[in-house]
């Protein structure tokens, strides 16, 4: 009789993942039964309900002592729960966009794929072992390869193929790095990397470097960023919104855990410095890239490259405050970005004409409320008050200054100064008085997106004046 090595607590730790993954099956079944009715809404509501259930369930474990599930494969703690909640909320806001976009018969499949991807991302949030990291990443990515292609445009298929090839290459880097790290330590747990002697082994340096390259690709940091505008442009709008937050949040969780807890103290600085340098360059390159864009999705892709650079900058120096402010800014970024995507969705039908920047020309005259909301989201992305983008930048700047990374603060300032032009170009276009007045008003088919726009607005403002950052979020590996 073989005794079960895993306790019930282990299963409770990963129960939210199972809820999300299981609900995806329910969505597919319900789609079979509800073919005749408005199955778009049936799938969406089941998916959202499942995500909410998983979120609430995960929140119950918050504040309890961390639990090392499955022999260190998955660590349940404040850090993983916060990231799980970020991912779940982002997934909900992305699913909402399907209310107006995508062919009716594809919504159920897309919802199910998105839920499975979400389960993968949640696994990454808690993964503390090279195998679970890779498992989570592949689960996340496999769903996204399919999702990217699910639109009737040639660019969608191009996006899917591009994402598949480049992302697989990056996964190869990651896997090769993992293999070397395994070679250096003889163990797949991140905890074993902390051993002081590891730093003397060249395999460790090569492995760590390749591992970080893989992460930089997933985060679309500077030299590995070129895929993201193309993929964002081609993918269906809800998928773009989803990718812009969830992929990055999950990868950041892995990176933070690796950088904070899984490196021998002596070599941390030398190994991570190149990563922070490319984060600094991303702030400049991403913001410069925005200047020439004519498509809102591409613009937000470049903006995301820079914004994630800011988040990574907060982690530089490995301070406890750094990880809190990185989470603060990530949450702020989530609401700003998803709010902006919701506005784009409101201006779009299946052809996604709302994502062309020219469709924002004179928007203030046609639809003043949407124009005001979009202005607000762009102001937040540019770091203008009274938004969480403003306060988040202050927090990142202060942690950079106090941790001795003042050069990152300088790059952040320079990048933001560049980005102002790109964001305000759209704002100016919306309020252009020479805009043709007689343009037809795009009838919105995404009514639920109004709700998500409102929620994002409220959060962005409230977060500015009540900047709560949870204190027990230090990533750990043991």
């Amino acid at each position: 009789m073989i005794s079960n090595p895993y306790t019930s607590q282990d299963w409770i730790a990963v129960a939210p993942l199972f809820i999300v993954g299981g609900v995806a099956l329910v969505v597919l079944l319900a789609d079979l039964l509800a073919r005749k009715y408005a199955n778009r809404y049936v799938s969406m509501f089941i998916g959202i309900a499942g995500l909410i259930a998983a979120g609430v369930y995960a929140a119950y474990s918050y504040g309890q002592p961390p639990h090392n599930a499955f022999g260190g494969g998955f660590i349940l703690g404040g850090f993983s729960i916060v990231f799980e909640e970020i991912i779940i909320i982002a997934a909900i806001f992305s699913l909402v966009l399907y209310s107006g976009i995508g062919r009716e018969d594809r919504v159920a499949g897309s919802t199910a794929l998105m839920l499975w991807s979400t389960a993968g991302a949640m696994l990454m949030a808690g993964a503390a072992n090279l195998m679970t990291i890779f498992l989570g990443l592949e689960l996340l990515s496999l769903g996204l390869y399919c999702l990217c292609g699910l639109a009737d445009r040639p660019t969608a298929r191009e996006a899917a193929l591009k994402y598949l090839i480049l992302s697989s290459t990056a996964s190869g880097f990651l896997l090769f790095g993992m293999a070397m790290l395994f070679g250096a330590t003889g163990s797949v747990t991140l905890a074993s990397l902390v051993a002081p002697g590891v730093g003397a082994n060249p395999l460790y340096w090569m492995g760590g470097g390749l591992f970080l390259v893989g992460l930089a690709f997933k985060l679309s940091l500077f030299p590995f960023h070129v895929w993201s505008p193309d993929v964002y442009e081609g993918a269906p709008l809800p998928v773009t919104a989803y990718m812009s937050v969830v992929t990055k949040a999950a990868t950041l969780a892995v990176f933070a855990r690796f950088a904070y807890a899984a490196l021998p103290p002596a070599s941390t600085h030398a190994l991570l410095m190149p990563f922070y340098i490319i984060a600094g360059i991303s702030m400049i390159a991403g913001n410069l890239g925005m200047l020439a864009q004519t498509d809102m999705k591409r613009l937000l892709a470049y903006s995301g490259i820079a914004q994630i650079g800011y988040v990574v900058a907060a982690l530089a120096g490995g301070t406890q405050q750094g990880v809190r402010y990185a989470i603060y800014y990530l949450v702020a970024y989530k609401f700003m970005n998803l709010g902006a995507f919701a506005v784009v969705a409101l201006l779009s039908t299946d052809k996604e004409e709302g994502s062309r920047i020219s469709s924002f020309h004179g928007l203030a005259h046609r639809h003043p409320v949407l124009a005001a909301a979009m202005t607000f989201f762009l102001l937040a992305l540019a770091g203008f008050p009274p938004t969480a983008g403003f306060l988040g930048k202050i927090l990142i700047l202060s942690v950079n200054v106090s941790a001795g990374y003042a050069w990152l603060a300088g790059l952040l300032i320079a990048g933001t100064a560049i980005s102002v032009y790109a964001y305000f170009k759209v704002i100016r276009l919306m309020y252009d008085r020479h805009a043709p007045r007689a343009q037809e008003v795009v009838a919105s088919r995404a009514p639920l997106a109004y709700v998500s726009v409102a929620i994002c607005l409220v959060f962005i403002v409230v977060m500015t004046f009540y900047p709560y950052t949870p204190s027990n979020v230090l990533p750990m590996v043991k």
Partner: protein
Amino acid sequence: MSLVLILLPLVAGCALFLLPRTDRMLSRAIGCMVAAITFFLPLVAGNNGTFAAHWLSRPFTASLHFAWGGLSLWLVLLLALCTFCAVLATNMAQTRTMVALLLMLEGTMMGVFTARDILAFALFWDLMLIPPFFALVGWGEHRETAWRYLIYNFSGGLLLLLATAAFGVIYGSTDVIGAAAHPIVGGWAPWIFAGFAFAFAVKTPLFPLHTWMPATYADSPPPMVSVVSSVQSKAGLYGFLVITLPFMPAAMAEWRWIFITASLISLLYGAFIALAQNDAKRIVAYSSLSHLGLIVLAIFSANPVALQGAVVYIVAHGLFSAALFLILGYIEQRKDTRSLVRLGGLGKANPKLAGAFTIAALGALGLPGLAGFVGELVILTGVFQSGYFWPALIALVPIVLASAYMLRLLQGIINGPQVNDIPQRRDLTWIEGLAVAPLLAALVALGVYPYAVLSSGVAAPSGRYGISSGFTRHEVMGAPSFMMGGAELGAERRFK
């Protein structure tokens, strides 16, 4: 109480968008009412209306802390008055939108002037850039102007943000404006000062950073530019007085020659360019550059007398530049041009307009009896007293030149033969007159009785300073309390 000053105009400004797009009367009535309330509230409420709420405890203490008193009270009053006049004078295609923008600008700038926390100051500092940007987008003549305004000023705002973060990390708290200060020390201090000073110098503007200003002033619609030039440009000077002077005196003293040189160049350069311009609005814009250079000179001489003169001149310049821009707006509306070459002989047909313009222009050239004179005199006395003989002497030159360019402006528009091919229109309507009357009355009142500003909260210097070589700790410790309206402020800080 001070929160009302900020929120009332902001909320009213947003609410105006509920009115129909073509509304002209109701929006102006509401705007005037709001501006009047914000003007009388600090006077009626008396005490400094402190509002304080905890905001951040890490990485440094910050609170949403607002109050008025001393210099900030004067700027609040000036802002409310200028907004009132600008709203009353608004008469254009989209009056409602303009009034809404003016009210939002008022609310954000109220935040700048009442903030007692540098982070709150920085928040409103960035926010106050948005209404003028929209005004330039909506009414500007050139597309680039809006960009120039925004990018220059937001770059300043970003460095202000960085400096604020560094200040907070080192000082532990940003809830410090007007409180008993101890200067920050260490290798970081000059860099923090540089960040603040860049932001303030862009906003003022000071010589090499001024290039956004003439275009912005010339392109903005008159009501907006009257508030921007008269009050928003004072935000930089206010920042120098309440942030860098008390907290970074050593860095200020070390770098003072750079700023004194820049201010002298601003003084001379602005005056000479104003002499050569033909666009009436640009003449006033460059004169503004020149006048504000004088205030920067006063601040960096760090002489208590000069600082008092600076405070008077800040208010005086606000009054006459608001009046000048509003009146130039009237002229432009009547004659469809503001080129001196095309204008002339306005005095005959529009005597009331000519009279108002004359008073404002005389105020700007520093005629004794009007407020500008007092400020210039006290500043020059103070600068001279602190041993800056040559700067004081050089600063005299543009004051003489001011007469030349202001009289040239006056003659070019009011006197001379009537130009036949431009339309003759009616004189000032009573609403238009009412819009500039309070500014001119205040200009006269303050010129006759400058003690009102000199005495209230901005106390007389307590002691003889003689010739000072740079900044002494004693002077600097005195600065915040007399700038911010007394020592009782320290006791009112509720949050640590």
